[in-house]
């Protein structure tokens, strides 16, 4: 375990220098001659029927090649959520529809010679709307008599569209009512989280063209190239084999690019015109028409015994999926499945979720995926239980968290929109995380002590989390590895690096397995013509699932190399062979041969064959990474401004394959979480229009907003993951809301039930307390 040569060692991200020197790596860096530019017309109404649409003037506008509406495009119901097949999400979306369901729904698109012409032509489209009553609040939406958002007869897979219920979940373990009766203390609270957006700095962008043989190529900023291929084929009614999807470098995704929203339009224009077509979202479109984070209302009830053992937990979540179902069901599933097993000492558990359609922007996958919203409530309620018991909240967590060797019935009861898979925890450093994190922040010195300086009051808070590593028995990745004359290898795999560094992890796994340097692995990824399948980058699956596939392929190639070496050495057994420094060495005889020699020999000379293998990985396990977060804040009683001073993230992600990349994932996620806790929020007009779709009014953090950040890694070895690794991408976005919420309580004895924790909300809570 400890004598790794590459795993856990400093390895430069393989694409970093190309990116740092501005090579043309992104979708929009490829500029093809004769490319048509596409612009979209959006509904100004939250709920309306298009009674009439007249595009004749627009069609006549100079440079206009095509105007697309529901009248002249395929009308095939599908889901835009890029998930495995059959999708857990409802089929409730058309490329274009007659009915508008939110401000930002697509009315029409224009393809023209220039962007300006396309934009001008949009203004000439005449639309007659019949405006319908709209509903924006999730509670109102599921009440009797609310306007029905999805009344299309073709809809499938939605739970009860007549009641605006996209999905519904109910699971029970034990008897939760009896559990509360038997408890000595009970806490019941409701917390609400807000609409937010991923805001990758590169927005959604797609370029489509026909290759020399007339096949459609989709070069797109996506997390799910293989799902793009399948869903575009479905939405346009064309065969999968006619489509090639290419994923170049991606400028961040965080979930919003796990969605097929531009590709089908672009593809359709290219197929009809035989010309390249480009569709690039503006920042405003990214806010109003890409995907968002589901706002949740979470009702949490916890019962505990005097000895500090949790006895019963009930979670009810009402999430707002906006106008379309997208990831609604699975995000809500994760609100239970990625949180409740953490407290497996509670014998009585109930999880009920309603997922409501409303006439607001569409929610989708967003880093944390439901767990973020659920932890915002659960981890504050845990602190409240501790207070009622007169116990240190750290101690309460310590007594109740899941441990190695243990399981939770929730794993089986609640999967991704269906039954899950039983999991036993095999690696868990929670005790170490609690201890080291507490020490770093000075928990025992500071928690519960009043500290102030004029109007500035100080507090500290904590939270505890788990997530998963891919979706068990659903997520599959595959990789092909082949050997070249100089002992280098081509790795062709479906794993989808969206900026995380997955390609580097993959190169490290190959290098470790074959005794070479990561630079000797030429990685080519996520091209549906060139690489094997992979579900894509989501559910924290990259290292575990795609990396697992790479390891399998590398082990097979290793066996093939050893077979050749055996013959060369004239030895019978490969068990004494090692691969090191680009050579196979027999420890028994001392003989050695370079990989290059083996490659030359097998490619050109004797027993000729290509040393190559494909590995596929799908796992019954989804080992959870664990994290404990601590934050110290300063809050100004006069202004209501909360300033995080120091943030500690203590994380167990198994064996960190690349420590720099791991650190980047942890800090990137928690800084996004910090601004979700403090500033990021959609503001809507009362007709459902987002009022702040730009970075001036929707504030994401910059260098000057970050506190001192300390990352602590507690290394474990996860036997089910490649070289002991678990995931790390999502988990650390879950901490800031509850940790800051708890710190706020520590400072001022106030609790905000709605995030973000803006100065206005803080001041109001202070006022209400008095």
């Amino acid at each position: 375990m400890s004598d790794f040569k590459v795993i856990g060692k400093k390895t430069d991200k393989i694409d970093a220098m190309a990116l740092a020197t501005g090579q043309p790596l992104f979708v929009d860096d490829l500029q093809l001659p004769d490319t048509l530019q596409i612009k979209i017309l959006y509904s100004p109404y939250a709920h309306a029927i298009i009674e009439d649409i007249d595009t004749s003037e627009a069609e006549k506008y100079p440079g206009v090649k095509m105007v697309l509406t529901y009248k002249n495009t395929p009308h095939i119901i599908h889901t835009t959520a890029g998930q495995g097949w059959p999708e857990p999400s409802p089929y409730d979306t058309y490329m274009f529809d007659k009915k508008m369901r939110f401000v930002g729904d697509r009315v029409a698109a224009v393809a023209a010679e220039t962007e300006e012409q396309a934009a001008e032509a949009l203004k000439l489209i005449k639309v007659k709307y019949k405006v319908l009553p709209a509903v924006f609040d999730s509670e109102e939406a599921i009440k009797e008599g609310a306007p029905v958002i999805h009344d299309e007869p073709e809809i499938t897979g939605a739970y009860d569209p007549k009641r605006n219920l996209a999905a519904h979940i109910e699971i029970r373990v034990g008897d939760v009512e009896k559990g509360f009766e038997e408890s000595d203390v009970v806490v019941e609270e409701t917390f609400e989280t807000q609409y937010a957006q991923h805001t990758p700095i590169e927005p959604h962008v797609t370029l489509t063209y026909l290759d020399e043989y007339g096949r459609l190529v989709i070069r797109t900023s996506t997390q799910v190239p293989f799902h793009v291929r399948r869903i575009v084929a479905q939405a346009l009614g064309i065969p999968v084999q006619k489509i090639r999807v290419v994923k170049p470098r991606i400028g961040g995704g965080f979930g919003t690019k796990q969605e097929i929203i531009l590709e089908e339009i672009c593809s359709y224009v290219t197929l009809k015109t035989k010309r390249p077509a480009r569709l690039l979202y503006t920042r405003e479109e990214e806010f109003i028409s890409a995907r968002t984070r589901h706002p949740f209302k979470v009702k949490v009830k916890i019962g505990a015994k005097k000895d500090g053992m949790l006895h019963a937990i009930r979670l009810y979540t009402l999430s707002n999926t906006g106008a379309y179902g997208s990831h609604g069901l699975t995000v809500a599933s994760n609100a239970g499945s990625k949180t409740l097993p953490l407290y497996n000492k509670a014998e009585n558990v109930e999880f009920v979720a309603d997922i409501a359609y409303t006439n607001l922007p569409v929610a989708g996958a967003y880093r944390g995926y439901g767990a973020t919203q659920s932890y915002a409530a659960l981890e504050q309620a845990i602190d409240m239980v501790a207070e009622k018991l007169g116990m240190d909240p750290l101690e309460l967590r310590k007594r109740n968290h899941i441990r190695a060797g243990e399981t939770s019935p929730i794993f089986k009861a609640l999967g991704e929109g269906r039954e899950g898979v039983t999991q036993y925890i095999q690696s868990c450093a929670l005790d170490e995380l609690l201890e080291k994190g507490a020490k770093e922040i000075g928990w025992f010195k500071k928690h519960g002590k009043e500290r102030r300086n004029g109007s500035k009051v100080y507090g500290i808070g904590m939270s505890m989390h788990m997530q998963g590593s891919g979706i068990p028995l659903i997520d599959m990745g595959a990789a092909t590895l082949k050997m070249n004359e100089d002992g280098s290898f081509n790795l062709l795999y479906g794993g989808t690096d969206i900026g995380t560094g997955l390609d580097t992890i993959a190169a490290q796994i190959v290098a470790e397995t074959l005794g070479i340097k990561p630079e000797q692995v030429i990685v080519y990824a996520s091209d549906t013509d060139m690489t094997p399948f992979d579900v894509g980058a989501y559910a924290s699956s990259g290292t575990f699932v795609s990396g697992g596939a790479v390891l399998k392929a590398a082990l097979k190639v290793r066996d093939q190399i050893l077979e050749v070496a055996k013959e060369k050495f004239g030895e019978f057994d490969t068990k004494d062979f090692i691969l090191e420094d680009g050579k196979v060495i027999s420890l028994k005889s001392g003989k050695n041969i370079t990989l290059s020699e083996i490659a030359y020999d097998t490619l050109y000379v004797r027993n000729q064959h290509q040393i190559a293998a494909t590995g596929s990985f799908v796992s019954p396990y989804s080992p959870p990474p664990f994290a404990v977060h601590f934050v110290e804040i300063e809050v100004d009683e006069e202004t209501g401004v909360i300033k995080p001073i120091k943030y500690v993230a203590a994380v167990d992600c198994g064996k960190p394959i690349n420590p720099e990349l791991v650190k980047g994932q942890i800090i990137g996620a928690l800084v996004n979480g910090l601004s979700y806790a403090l500033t990021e929020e959609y503001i809507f007009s009362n007709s459902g229009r987002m009022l702040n779709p730009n970075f001036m009014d929707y504030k994401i953090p910059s260098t000057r907003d970050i506190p001192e950040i300390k990352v602590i890694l507690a290394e474990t070895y996860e036997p089910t993951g490649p070289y002991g690794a678990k995931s790390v991408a999502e988990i650390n976005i879950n901490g800031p809301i509850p940790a800051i919420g708890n710190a706020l309580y520590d400072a001022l004895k106030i609790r905000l039930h709605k995030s973000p924790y803006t100065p206005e909300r803080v001041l109001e809570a202070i006022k209400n307390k008095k």
Partner: protein
Amino acid sequence: MKVKYIINGKEEEYEIHPGEVLLDVLRRNGHTEIKGNCYLGTCGACTVLIDGVPHTSCTILAAKVNGKEITTIKGIGELDSPHPLQQAFVKTGAVQCGFCTPGAILSAYALLKKNPDPTEEDIKKALDGNLCRCTGYVQQIEAVKFAVKLLKEGKNE
């Protein structure tokens, strides 16, 4: 109308429309190393140096900077001869998706030209306009500090 710039030391002449912003003109003419999308001066991805000073190229009319010297990320270092800042960003894990990286490095470059020994506050201030959604900035700040060290050790430009 026609404009002339000296881009990364090379004179270039372009045909432009009077209303066009610099970002669009440069990208259209092959300078795709400049990123950007907000067109409001709020993300910093489109940062270039104009006569050595960082500017968001999306908020500057191309016509207005006629005749000026423009530096893009390619002007400070290339794949086979990277600038210490580019090396430092790679070494410290400061490049995730890399979409913000050219802009951030150019802002840092301008800082180090003016102030070869910046404090952490100076670095934060210099990079304040370059939004990054991936890194959370910590490794970017470390990268600039590391570049300062490399530059002092004489790995000069």
